[in-house]
């Protein structure tokens, strides 16, 4: 069986060949394999040098300084560290958190855990297009609000939140602002030197870097404190202990470097591909785009098809590697909670597919997708009873 056309770049990306090559140089005996914490010998100090170089590369893409970057095992951990870390550290200040219903599970489940520890959490319901209105955040603020967590680009529908505005608001109210930027870093411009964000989560594997490595930006001015999640040895200025995975870090650094270099040209290319895909699909009729079409990450498209059932649709489209809902939740069978939060009825939410294009997507991939979708949706509708 021929491998399907990959249209699931929002779930994960293949590693760029340049990144893979970088990673290889940190593995075996002829590479820089030592422990970056082994300051007692030159091999360890050399490894440490590459870790710091990669830190600079990640910081550069975000407009941050290197010392504001803490390595983690991925955006899931970054989100946990940011939200629990702040909630625990600033518990005396207050126990109220504001987030939105369309956040990634790594934010929502973390908030749920904090609720079980006695925090109160307000879950905002975004307006129709999936956008959180900064006024909603303002209205939800209380005297005991310590943290607001709103993502940058949504992982299911691709819409971009007004992070700068929400950040401004938080700063003016002296409330910490965390932003999950796993889906936006390297795709949508981020400049933390101008955006008032206190904590920002990013991940390697959404940007053609390796899986299992991520980072948390921890703002230095004003200085943000966190209670660490993982103790032992005091790596990363005490915020995240554990042996630093040099090949992963160097890979993420290189991936972020490349992403920064190509962000504009690649954004344009992907926007054009997505437009073509959307226009091609729309001709089958009874198709709706989930989330605002204007304000969205370049390669993301989420559509629902009237009159077809979700599982059949997915199986009929198995020539395309697409996702129904977020990769993280698609192992359960329930309709996407994000789409339900946007007010889609269950059967429509459930017949939605996310198509996410990326660096290795071609014009021909899009042609195949349009053809398969038109054919199969038409066929399923012929069988369907209303």
């Amino acid at each position, binding site marked *: *069986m021929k*491998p399907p056309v990959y249209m699931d770049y929002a779930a994960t990306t293949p590693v760029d060949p340049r990144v893979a090559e970088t990673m290889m140089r940190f593995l075996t005996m002829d590479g820089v394999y030592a422990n970056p914490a082994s300051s007692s010998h030159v091999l360890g100090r050399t490894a440490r040098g590459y870790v710091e170089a990669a830190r600079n590369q990640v910081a550069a893409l975000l407009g941050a300084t290197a010392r504001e970057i803490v390595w983690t095992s991925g955006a899931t951990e970054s989100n946990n560290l940011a939200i629990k870390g702040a909630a625990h550290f600033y518990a005396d200040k207050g126990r109220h958190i504001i987030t939105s219903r369309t956040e990634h599970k790594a934010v929502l489940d973390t908030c749920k855990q904090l609720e079980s520890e006695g925090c109160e959490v307000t879950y905002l319901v975004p307006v129709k297009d999936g956008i959180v209105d900064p006024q909603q955040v303002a209205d939800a603020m209380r005297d005991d609000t310590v943290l607001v967590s709103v993502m940058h680009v949504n992982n299911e529908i691709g819409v971009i939140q007004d992070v700068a505005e929400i950040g401004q608001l938080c700063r003016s109210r002296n409330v910490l602002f965390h932003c999950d930027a796993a889906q936006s870093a390297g795709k949508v411009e981020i400049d933390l030197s101008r955006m008032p964000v206190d904590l920002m989560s990013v991940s390697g594997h959404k940007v053609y870097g390796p899986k299992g490595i991520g980072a948390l930006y921890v703002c230095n001015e004003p200085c943000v404190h966190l209670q660490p999640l993982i103790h032992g040895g005091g790596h990363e200025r005490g915020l995240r202990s554990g042996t630093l995975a040099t090949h992963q870090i160097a890979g993420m650094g290189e991936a972020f470097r490349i992403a920064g270099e190509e962000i504009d040209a690649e954004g344009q290319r992907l926007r054009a591909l997505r437009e073509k895909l959307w226009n091609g699909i729309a001709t089958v009729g009874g198709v709706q785009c989930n989330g605002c079409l204007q304000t969205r990450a370049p390669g993301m498209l989420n559509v629902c098809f009237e*009159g*077809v*059932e979700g*599982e*059949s649709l997915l*199986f*009929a489209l198995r020539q395309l590697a697409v996702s129904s809902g977020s990769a993280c939740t698609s192992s359960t069978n329930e309709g996407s909670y994000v789409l339900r939060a946007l007010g889609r009825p*269950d*059967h429509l939410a*459930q017949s939605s597919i996310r198509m996410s294009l990326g660096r290795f997507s071609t014009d021909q991939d899009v042609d195949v997708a349009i053809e398969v979708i038109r054919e199969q949706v038409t066929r399923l509708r*012929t*069988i*369907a*009873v*209303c």
Partner: protein
Amino acid sequence: MGIEERQMNYSNIVIDHFEKPRNVIEGCDESALSGRAGSKSAGMLVEFCLDVSDGVIEHAGFRAWGCPHTIAVASWLTEEITGKGINEVQSLDLDMIASQLELPAEKWNCVLMAEDALRDATKGTSH
């Protein structure tokens, strides 16, 4: 490293009926027996249409909205019941159907739903 098809929940017979469903109808004649069961919010909706003559099903057709198993079960049943007497239809062996189509346990409700639709089609008839 080759891409191998791993543990799919779809048997070959389900795939066959899903890909090439038998006896799909557009609508149902006034003269035929028609019945349906399920709903979109329940996740599946099945409709049968039976041409019956002298208590024997001469032709069976279906439409279905649901997962591949739902479609396959309905399609498979249209072949299975053609030529059978209506009273036979009212006592289908559900276990047999599920095992013929190699349904995973969590998909047995597709068979129940199809049975309900058939019962609905034949409910006015004597037995």
